[in-house]
């Protein structure tokens, strides 16, 4: 019995050490989120959905503005629409010891909507059950909680991942993917079709808007807040305008009320290029990031 136990314990220790070793190797190539929720606390957070994740490059913002070190903490529509889950996560992630931070918050109708029957029922918010709503920390590496319960790929992907998508050190997504025009057009058509269906199920949520306000109030304690509506393909813009035709009015009203800037780039959809209809390719993302940084610079007193 003793021999059995000793052997089992030693073997288990070797295995557990190997597993821990693999977990230590997890990085920005492991999956699209790991680096975001395993880096240390960050300042000058950039928030929003996957659109923001692709489109805003903190390194370019930092270079233009100087004196800040921003971090792209944007996820997806299912993970990070404005709500209690995202707000709590932001509170965990934000380094509150840094002063004069700059916060960029991506806004569009989707991050202020929900697909439940009552769009203001907090219990029905999809992100509650998603990883941001369930993990206990967003600042530890390895993030065992995330890797054990939420990592959706086989762990071999931590050691060997050929995916062209990866997370930069600044939290933004990059992709080395070279797509043909034909493929992009197909992606665009499929995405617009999907969002047209989605739009029928979604409704504006005043509760999400209230959480956006709460997020802004919280962040304003540590710096300046800028709201950005990103450019997207104009056909997709048409779809999301059906979801919330008065979106810009609502946002302008709110930004005045809360004394924050609202930059609306939505009409410049055809100036930038996308992998589909709203996820920007790196070259466009760099261009847009620079433009946003300049606008922020200009707006500063």
């Amino acid at each position: 019995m003793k021999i059995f136990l000793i052997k089992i314990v030693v073997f288990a220790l070797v295995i557990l050490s190997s597993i821990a070793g693999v977990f230590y190797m997890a990085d920005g190539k492991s999956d699209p989120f790991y680096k975001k929720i395993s880096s240390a606390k960050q300042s000058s957070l950039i928030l929003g959905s996957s659109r923001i994740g692709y489109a805003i490059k903190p390194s370019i913002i930092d270079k233009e503005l100087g004196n800040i070190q921003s971090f792209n903490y944007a996820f997806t529509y299912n993970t990070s629409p404005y709500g209690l889950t995202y707000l709590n996560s932001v509170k965990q992630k934000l380094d509150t010891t840094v002063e004069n931070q700059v916060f960029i918050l991506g806004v569009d109708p989707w991050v202020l909507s929900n697909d439940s029957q009552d769009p203001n029922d907090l219990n029905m918010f999809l992100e509650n059950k998603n990883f941001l709503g369930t993990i206990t920390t967003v600042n530890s590496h390895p993030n065992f909680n995330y890797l054990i319960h939420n990592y959706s790929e086989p762990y071999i992907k931590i050691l060997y991942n050929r995916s062209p998508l990866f997370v930069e050190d600044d939290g933004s997504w990059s992709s080395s993917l070279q797509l043909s025009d034909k493929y992009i057009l197909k992606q665009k058509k499929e995405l617009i079709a999907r969002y047209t269906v989605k739009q029928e199920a979604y409704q504006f949520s005043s509760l999400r808007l209230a959480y956006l306000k709460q997020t802004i109030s919280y962040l304003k304690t540590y710096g300046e807040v800028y709201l950005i509506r990103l450019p997207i393909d104009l056909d997709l813009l048409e779809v999301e305008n059906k979801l919330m035709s008065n979106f810009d009015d609502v946002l302008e009203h709110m930004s005045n009320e809360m004394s924050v800037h609202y930059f609306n780039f939505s009409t410049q959809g055809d100036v930038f290029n996308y992998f589909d209809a709203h996820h920007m390719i790196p070259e466009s993302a760099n261009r847009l990031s620079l433009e946003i940084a300049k606008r922020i610079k200009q707006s500063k007193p």
Partner: protein
Amino acid sequence: MLFNSLEFAVFLPLVFLLYWFIIPKHKKFQNALILTSSYVFYGWWDWRFLCLILFSSIVDYYVGIQMQNTDIKKRRKQLLWLSVFVNLGVLILFKYYNFFAQNFVDAFTLFGKSVSLSSLDIILPVGISFYTFQSLSYSIDVYRRKLEPTKDWLSFLCYVSFFPQLVAGPIERAKNLLPQFYKLRKFNYNQATDGIRQMLWGFFKKIVVADNCAKYVNIIFDSAEDQSGSTLLLGAVLFSFQIYGDFSGYSDIAIGSAKLFGFDFKQNFRVPYFSRNIAEFWRRWHISLSTWFRDYLYIPLGGSYGSKTNVLRNIFIIFIVSGFWHGANWTFIFWGFLHALFFVPLFLFNTNRKYLNTVSENRFFARPKELLSILYTFAIVTLAWVFFRADNLPHAFVYFKTLFSPSLISIPDFVGEEKMLISLFFIGILIILEWFGRDNNHTLESINKHFSKPIRYTFYYLLVMIIFLFGVQEQPFIYFQF
């Protein structure tokens, strides 16, 4: 609680330590711990359904005691029927009621009459088909005087609910398992290490082989009408390995876990895909169920004795009922029917007991003729699995229609994908290792005899790391739904 879950990874060592180190070394304490942990194991899924297990156990325990107290044949028969009524009643209510109700309504609609029967909005309790059959076999054996009824209620409750085999078998006979609860279990090093090895192989089959195949199987079956014939063939082959890895993997983990507590279960799978005909396949696939139906249905019906017509009838009954046992769907019935059709020629030409030994015994490779027989058997079993996996009969027919279209002669989709190559690679590893371990009770059983310690431990280490690195997270076992 799933075997491939973090909860089980904590539960099993905890129960193991309590069992061998903490509780007093007395069979009653051991049994009490087994019963408690089995109920926790089951209740983890839904504690409300524990009352069903308890109900079924109490009825059969009572039936056994009462049968012993009387020699009156009629009374004994009444008691047996009580057990049959309760066990099958529970099974029918929870598993088959909606199926029968729906078909009843459909049949009347076909003849232009409208009948309304409300369906029951109930969950199918996990493992119900397994523990009701296990409990029922006890009553039948006591009735046939093949088994002394037990007066040890704790042992009996343990027998019905022992956690390794509670939710997906093997369906253990009281004659084999119950006496093991009567004795104090003593730790046996060889038995425990063999159990760990068998569990390890079971986890490999389930988490690496079955779950990796599942991703493609789901895609291919869910969009059968849009796939090429060759892709559908690939989907069917992958499902063959998925269901084998899933179910035989579960059995290996169950048998291995039981060994850790000093119990021996019967073998449930004996490399069925190396069978040379369908009769041999059924002697090697889900053995505990096939022998259950043989002993409690086929033989009482007359078995292989009597006129050819009667035997043919018995063959069809046993295969169709066995198919229906898997689920309340015509697809399972058709699957069983198909296997009966495959079996009938063997019976008619008296070749159903031709292969009783292991294939290519004492040989490294199979003889060409044997290899062809194996491939042929695998092919027909694989085609029949399409019915097993399909959502309904029209789905299965669409699958076959597209499968046997000109697009069968084409390169299947997905073959170049990294994940597909990984799945095929591990299927290859499974086939090779199972071939070399085909004489054993489980694939890794005789690894001790052939390899030195360093090689063995390196192999175990690699196997665990493969399970960790290539495994897919917490996919439920297919047979849980049965």
